[in-house]
């Protein structure tokens, strides 16, 4: 079967020959026309379009963007801030990088439209520290847009003013968590805030109402305002509207980024037809569907249950390959669509060693504020690293899971869940490998790829 055609609305110009990231190229391609039309409309109308579109946030949680905007406290009299979350850090995710590097004005136009819709006068783009080039490109793009009066005081003569500044992070994953990001932007350690009371929509940056949206989400906003919320809601499937960008990495023939209408392709089509299938002589073993914190799926397992199709409840019986790649279907089978980062592992991988790699990441990135997460992620790392580099014991799997089970729900932010889901799911799905690892490791090829 040949690969289905992509629908590139956000990645329309990514990797297009001759397309450059300066404003002249953007203007030649119809850039800032949507902004020009937007500032002539009522802000509430724009918010309504986003609500109608059904757009769900592309940062990981999939929270409806229109609802998020609806929660903003507009009566406090305090300024409203908008922060672009460009702290792309969830392992397996690499879509925002390309938008910022190759098509930065798309993001800036989406940001200013969103600011106008929400009466925001000051926006910040919080970009991760490891993207210095991206930060420079964005700063240049903002100054180009300012020179053309798309950003800054009295935008296009409307009397509406809005400034955007780029703010660089410094290597901490937790800054992707919106309240941690806000603390970081205030010049502090990125320790996430407890909700309630610190919902950003009410008590965000400088204790003012704040909207935090992902880079890709704001690009979708631009598209929605251009084409209308209703037209957008017809792309994809009900509840999972618009397109999704899948970032595929690991053991496939053609890793990369692919944009499709949400929910219209299955994991099997994505990995086999789009990405060319497994490497020669290999078979797929496991896939993490939505960034490394998403629960792992094991090839060969079946998922059964009832799901809603239109007004009816129908039975489903899926293998990994049959699962539609949308937020709801992946949640239904116990994982998540998250940030769209799909990490594929083939039969050359030992799952204990893969988990040890993931655990080292989360241990390194725990902010340390809540004991269960700080200590739990550290012990999960220590135990799994010992299994690989020292003595592995048959009871280690159970020990790891007992640590993981004591973290979720006991922490201020969702990092507690993020760090325990890999361990919990690896041990449930690949119990055989954890139980047998102490014996099996003696027979594993010495020249296998080192994972930890």
């Amino acid at each position: 079967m040949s690969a289905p055609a992509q629908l590139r609305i956000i990645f329309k110009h990514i990797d297009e020959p001759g397309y450059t990231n300066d404003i002249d190229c953007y203007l030649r391609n119809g850039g800032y026309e949507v902004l020009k039309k937007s500032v002539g409309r009522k802000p509430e109308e724009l918010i309504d379009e986003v609500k109608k579109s059904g757009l769900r946030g592309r940062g990981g949680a999939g929270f409806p963007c229109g609802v998020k905007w609806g929660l903003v406290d507009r009566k406090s009299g305090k300024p409203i801030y908008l922060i672009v979350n460009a702290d792309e850090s969830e392992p397996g995710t690499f879509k925002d990088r390309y938008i910022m590097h190759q098509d930065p004005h798309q993001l800036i136009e989406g940001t200013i439209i969103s600011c106008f819709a929400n009466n925001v006068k000051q926006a910040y783009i919080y970009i991760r520290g490891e993207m210095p080039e991206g930060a420079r490109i964005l700063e240049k793009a903002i100054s180009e847009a300012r020179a053309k009066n798309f950003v800054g005081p009295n935008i296009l003569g409307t009397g509406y003013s809005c400034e955007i500044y780029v703010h660089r992070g410094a290597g901490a994953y937790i800054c992707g968590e919106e309240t941690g990001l806000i603390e970081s932007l205030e010049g502090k350690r990125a320790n996430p805030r407890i909700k309630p009371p610190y919902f950003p929509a009410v008590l965000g940056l400088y204790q003012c109402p704040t909207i935090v949206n992902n880079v890709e989400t704001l690009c979708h906003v631009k598209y929605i305002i251009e084409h209308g919320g209703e037209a957008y809601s017809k792309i994809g499937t009900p509840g999972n509207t618009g397109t999704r960008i899948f970032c595929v990495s690991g053991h496939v023939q053609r890793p990369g980024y692919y944009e499709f209408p949400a929910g219209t392709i299955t994991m099997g089509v994505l990995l086999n037809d789009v990405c060319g299938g497994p490497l020669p002589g290999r078979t797929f073993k496991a896939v993490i569907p939505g960034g490394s914190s998403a629960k792992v799926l094991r090839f060969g397992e079946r998922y059964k249950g009832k799901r809603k199709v239109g007004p009816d409840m129908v039975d489903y019986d899926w293998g990994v390959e049959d699962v539609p790649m949308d937020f709801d279907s992946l949640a239904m089978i116990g994982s998540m669509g998250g940030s769209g980062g799909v990490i594929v592992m083939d039969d050359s991988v030992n799952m204990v060693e893969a988990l040890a790699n993931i655990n080292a990441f989360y241990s390194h990135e725990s902010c340390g504020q809540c004991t269960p997460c700080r200590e739990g992620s550290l012990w999960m790392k220590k135990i799994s690293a010992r299994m690989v580099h020292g003595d592995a014991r048959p009871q280690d799997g159970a020990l790891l899971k007992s640590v993981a089970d004591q973290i979720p729900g006991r922490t201020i932010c969702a990092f507690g869940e993020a760090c325990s889901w890999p361990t919990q799911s690896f041990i449930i799905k690949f119990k055989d490998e954890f139980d047998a690892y102490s014996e099996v490791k003696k027979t594993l090829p010495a020249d296998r790829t080192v994972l930890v």
Partner: protein
Amino acid sequence: MNLKPETFQRIDEVITHYPVKRSATLPLLHLIQEDAGHISDEAIAWIAKKLELELINVLEVVTFYPMFRRAPIGRRHVKVCRTLSCALKGGYKTCETFEHEFHTHRGEISPCGEVTVEFVECLASCGTAPVVLIDETLHENVDVAKAKQISAQIKSEAAQRR
């Protein structure tokens, strides 16, 4: 503080981006580290004074964020991604290659002073794994052969400088 005039200029400019001075802590640390190479005690005291903060407010930020360093590093900073997608494609071998080529260990300045090789967590370019960030430039698909080639280029540039 002994910094380039343009660094002082950029510092004064960036403080104006925020309604609260403290927000400029990370930008100032970046600017000073880019100029001076690392964050000294003097820099921490200077930033605290500049932003009207206590010393601890700056120190706790420096120790929290992995990118800020308290000691000098080699002429170039070689950051190899350690996280899963890169590891699956041989990231550990890539890192070892750099260590071997420069007779060094992770986190140390190489004896020639040219590089500090380090593992870092996900660089968000998993589709072109393994990736390596050298100073501000991202290198993609860095297998052993490409790591050797990059190392040779760094060495030849170093030789020309002498």
